[in-house]
Each structure stands twice: as structure tokens, then as C-alpha cells.
């Protein structure tokens, strides 16, 4: 069991006003092996960095690897709830795993803080008072891209995403705010790595811009092949294909591409600057979007711990709802469905020395909520 019990380093001197009498037990289920492990590792590292910095010794984190398999995630959730009797769960990266785990753990009275996935079901009809999303609702970054397309004056976008629910949500999200026409709308095979056929269609479509949602290796392949195709249209994507972890693998092909994100390492606030610096110092690499989400999740939890005892569920829930913590992304508060209300930025991929990274070039949406909150009754 990978228990990380934190030693009481300078806890006294920091003098955290710990209202919680008992230690809080946190179960983190995330992807640490197999494909997509990079995301889980970043969430974990960001989360643990915040815990370490707080010096709070009243928190015990149990970390488990879901291997990106829903049935394994369910098994681990059972274990954490039944055997470890945790108070709070967190860590899931993927929407399908989130859907498998979250409804059942919140029904069992546990708190769940999502550091990454935000399926629409859980923001709308399936919302739950014990479920807090600290990242975004799945559609958010795509909606921002649609809004950005209007600003840029795109009139005829070609949009594509993998043929699975998150892909369909993504394109729906883009179309929600986008006012122009569509030159084409394509669903690719999940896990597809060759996009020659799609690129040929884009070339022939007469589009004036391209929007894609292809997470992980799919995005790397698409961008590299897009760069080689000679198609000269502006391409926009959500931050997932441009995060710090995979940007180096895309290389020059990503340079200059605009992407939407609720966080960027150059958000110039003391909190964020300190986060970027300390993350680099601790792990020897630049933090990613996922690391920032993990970091924020832990800080949200710590803020609630300082206000209420986790055993008093109602008080603890209220403390979480207040979101009284300093987010790396600046303004952060929860909407009525416990999903973030936040600004979403447009970033551009640049090269700093030898390292590819992102720079903010503007704001796509201000204090943006999501499209589902009105369906949420709680």
C-alpha cells in the first residue's frame, strides 16, 4: 500500500488553524501505469506538492493506480471506502472512469473532488452535493474555443473528435457558442493514429479554420501530420493536446497553435508563480495543466479542513462550497452545481530556449459557468 504519511515538518511554526480534530483520510485513484499515466502522475504530484507545502499533518493520502480501467477503478473505490474508510476521494482522470466511480461513492456519503474529469451528466441531472469539480465541466474548453472562433472571425470551421461520448460533447461544446458554419464535422476512431484521410478531407472542404479534440497520443499524431500536410489553415484545440507533458513530443508542429485553457504557467499571480517555481524545484520539470488542477484540488481540500471537521458532513460541504483558497488560475468559485466559475484563456504555443510551452494571448470567456447547472437540483 502506497501510503504517504506526512511528517510534521514545521507544522507548529506555520500554525495552521486546524479546526479539524481528526485527520482526514484521502483516497486518490488515478492513472499511474499504461497509456495516459503521465496525466495521473501530474495530478498526483501537484496534489502532493500542495499537501507538503501546507505542512498539515492531519491529512493522510492513499494513492492507487487504476490502470485506466473502469472496473479496476471501481474495485479500488470499493477498497478505499470499505477497507480504508476514507473521507474524501479524488484523482480520476477519465470521464468514463469518473462515471463508474463517482455516483456510487457520493451515494455512500463520501466527498469526491474531481481534479480532471467533468462529465456533463454529473454537472446536470446527476449532480450531487458531495461532488465538487475543481477542474472544469468537460465542455468548457471547447465552448471557449467556439467563442474564440467568433472573435477571430472564423466563418467555416472544420471540426473533428474521436467517436466516443467525450468527443461528441466536445463538438457540441464548440458549436454551442460558435456562430459560423461548419465545413465539416468528423468523428474519428478512438485511438486512431493516422489522420491522412481526415487531412485530405479538410484540405478539400474549403474550411477557413480547424478545431480538433484529440487527447493524448491521438493529438500528437494529428498535429505532426497536420504540419506535414501543407494545409495552411489556423488550427485551434483545447489545452489537452498542448499540455507541458506532450508538447515536447509534438515539437515544432505545435508552434504557434492557439489553444484554450483555464490555466497557464504564465498567469502572473504570486500564487501561480510560486506554484510553477516550487513544482519545478520539486520534480525537475515544468508543471502541466493537470499538475495545476491537482494542486488546486489539494488546496481546496486543505481550506475546508481548516474550517470544518470532515466528520461533520454538512459543515465540511459548506466549507468546500466557499472555495476559500488561492487558486493557481486566479479567480475561482463554485456555481450552484459545484462546478467552477472561472475565466478561460487562449494560449499560443511558443518556444522558450529548447522547451516548448504556452503563452497567454487573451481571454476567451469571463467568469464562465457551464451549460448544465440549470438541470441540477440539489
Amino acid at each position: 500500500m502506497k501510503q504517504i504519511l506526512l511528517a510534521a515538518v514545521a507544522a507548529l511554526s506555520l500554525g495552521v488553524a486546524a479546526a479539524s480534530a481528526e485527520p482526514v483520510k484521502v483516497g486518490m485513484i488515478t492513472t499511474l501505469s499504461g497509456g495516459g499515466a503521465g496525466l495521473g502522475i501530474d495530478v498526483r504530484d501537484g496534489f502532493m506538492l500542495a499537501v507538503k507545502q501546507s505542512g498539515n499533518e492531519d491529512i493522510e493520502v492513499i494513492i492507487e493506480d487504476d490502470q485506466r480501467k473502469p472496473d479496476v477503478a471501481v474495485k479500488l473505490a470499493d477498497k478505499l471506502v470499505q477497507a480504508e474508510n476514507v473521507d474524501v476521494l479524488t484523482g480520476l482522470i477519465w470521464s468514463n472512469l469518473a462515471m463508474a466511480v463517482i455516483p456510487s461513492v457520493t451515494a455512500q456519503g463520501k466527498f469526491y473532488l474531481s481534479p480532471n474529469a467533468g462529465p456533463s451528466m454529473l454537472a446536470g441531472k446527476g449532480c450531487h452535493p458531495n461532488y465538487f469539480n475543481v477542474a472544469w465541466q468537460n465542455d468548457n474548453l471547447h465552448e471557449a474555443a467556439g467563442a474564440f472562433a467568433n472573435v477571430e472571425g472564423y466563418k467555416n470551421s472544420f471540426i473533428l473528435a474521436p467517436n466516443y461520448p467525450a468527443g461528441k460533447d466536445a463538438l457540441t461544446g464548440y458549436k454551442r457558442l460558435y456562430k459560423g458554419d461548419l465545413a465539416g464535422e468528423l468523428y474519428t476512431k478512438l485511438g486512431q493514429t493516422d489522420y491522412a484521410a481526415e487531412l485530405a478531407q479538410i484540405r478539400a472542404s474549403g474550411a477557413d479554420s480547424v478545431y480538433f479534440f484529440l487527447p493524448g497520443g491521438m493529438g500528437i499524431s494529428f498535429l505532426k501530420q497536420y504540419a506535414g500536410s501543407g494545409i495552411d489553415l489556423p488550427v485551434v484545440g483545447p489545452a489537452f493536446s498542448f499540455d507541458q507533458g506532450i508538447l515536447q513530443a509534438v515539437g515544432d508542429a505545435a508552434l504557434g497553435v492557439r489553444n484554450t485553457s483555464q490555466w497557464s504557467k504564465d498567469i502572473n499571480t504570486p500564487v501561480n508563480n510560486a506554484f510553477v517555481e516550487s513544482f519545478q524545484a520539486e520534480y525537475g520539470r515544468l508543471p502541466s495543466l493537470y499538475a495545476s488542477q491537482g494542486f488546486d484540488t489539494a488546496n481546496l481540500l486543505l481550506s475546508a479542513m481548516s474550517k470544518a471537521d470532515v466528520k461533520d458532513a454538512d459543515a465540511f460541504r459548506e466549507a468546500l462550497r466557499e472555495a476559500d483558497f488561492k487558486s493557481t488560475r486566479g479567480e475561482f468559485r463554485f456555481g450552484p452545481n459545484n462546478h467552477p466559475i472561472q475565466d478561460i484563456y487562449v494560449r499560443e504555443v511558443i518556444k522558450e530556449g529548447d522547451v516548448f510551452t504556452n503563452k497567454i494571448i487573451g481571454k476567451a470567456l469571463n467568469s464562465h459557468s457551464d451549460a448544465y447547472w440549470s438541470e441540477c437540483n440539489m
Partner: protein
Amino acid sequence: MSLILLIEQILNGLQFGIMLFLMAAGLTLIFGVMGLINLAHGSLYMIGAFCAAAVAGATGSFLLGLIAALAGAAIAGALVELVVIRRLYTKDHLDQVLATFALILIFSEGTRWLFGSFPLFLDIPDALSGPVTLPGGIEYPLYRLTLIIVGLLVAAGLFLLISRTRLGIQIRAGENDREMIAALGVDIAKLYTIVFALGAALAGLAGALVGAIQSVQVGMGEPVLILAFVVIVIGGIGSIKGALIGAILVGLTDTLGGIFLPELMKLFFSPATATSIGSSIASMSIYILMAAVLVLRPTGLFGARA
């Protein structure tokens, strides 16, 4: 749909097919000569891509990367053959499936342990980047064109190797009668190691070539492995010619199916439904093709008749 787009898509299908052929050729060779089902072939593909990315990253030369991919995969193949695979020849297919499945686990996690969980960078050389204009005004990426040519050259080389060289004679003999080639005084153990390394090198080459336009990451081998199996089963296991034709069939089916099926469905359904249903059927199309071929010809197109 314009003719130019159609031709471009056919080229894409062809290119995809030829990359599959590089994978499938090694797989079918190994099965033909040694009678071994090697699920770990996808791992050799991954090893090729990682070697190429590591060496190209360190030296800046794509060509050196390719050589490293060939050498790295061949060495890994020879090692695996010596340590594990040669104990499997006498076992049944079931044991082979399980043992090589175990090898996948070891290779994947081992690679992740060595290189970390993030994808590696491998880019195409500048000389091959960008599109070229083909006769008829078709713009086509130069690198993909190069892939088609390299793949066809490798195919030609393999045919020559099998039909003209001493090694080829031994390979063909090995496919027909193991005891006879032992009687001829050929060192079977050595022959098997060489064939396995050759198959591994082909997989490594494919991994490096494809890695340059896709992403070099742990687990990249498995989807390709399944496709390569589909290819050799359609073509008839053990037949290089079958692998080539099967690969091109699969490449074209996959590429063209993805384009035409949604269009076809639009004749019957609303556009959104059509796109969805069409994409669904397209993602199943090569498996439907394979099942259909096997139902009609239970040992593939060019397989030995039972």
C-alpha cells in the same frame, strides 16, 4: 467527392497498408518458419520507435535513428528468441499466446520504467517535410510518399531474399519440413534466431518510420499488432504475398470505409445520425472484412489448404 480527393485517399490507404505490411511481414515469416504466434511483435515495433527517438534526439540525425531502430529491434528480437522464444516452438499455440502476452507486459512496463510515461519526440527530417505536387495537381506529403516507396522496396527486397538467397532457401525449406532442413545440415537454432531477428528488425523499422508522424509512446504497439494479425490472417498465415495483399486490403478498407460509410449512410439517415452510424460501422469494417474472408476461405486468401 472530387477525383483528386479520391486518389489522395487511395494513396493514404496504400500508405497505411504498406506500413502494416512491414509489421505483418515479420509476423507471418516467424509464424511460417517457426509456427509461433508472437503477440510481442508489437513490443518490437515500440522498441524500434523508442530507439529511433532516443538516438535521433541525441544526434539530431533521423537516419542514425532509423539505423538504431533496425539494430535495436533486431538485437532485442535475437535476445528474446535466445532467452524465451526458443522454448516455445514445441509448445502449443495456447502457451505461445500466453508467454508472448507476458512479454508484452514486461516490455511495456520496462520501457515506461526506462523512458518515463510521457511520449517521446521524433520528427521527420527536414528534407522530407512538407507536401509535393503530384501529376494531376494532387498535393501529397513527401514523407508519406517516401513511406510508400520504402515499404515497396522492403517488400521487393524480401521477395528477393526469399526466392534468391541461401537464407531464403532455408526459410522456405523450414516452412515445409523442419526435419528435412535439419537433415540438410542447416543449424536450425541459428536459422530461427536469424529469422526472428529479421522479423523484429522489420517491426522496428515500421515503428521508427511511423513514430515520426505519430507519437512514440508506451502501448503504441498493441493496436498495430492486432491490425497486423488481421492482415496475416486475411492473407493466409506464412505467406509474404498474402501479407502484402492483405495489408493493402486492410489499409484501403480502413481508410476508404471511414470516408465512404458515413456518406453512404446519409442516403438513409439524417446527417448527424449518418455520421455516427457510419463511423461506428467503419471502425468495425476491417474486422468484418476479416471474418468474411475466413468464413469463405478458412485459411485466408493465400494460406495452405488444410
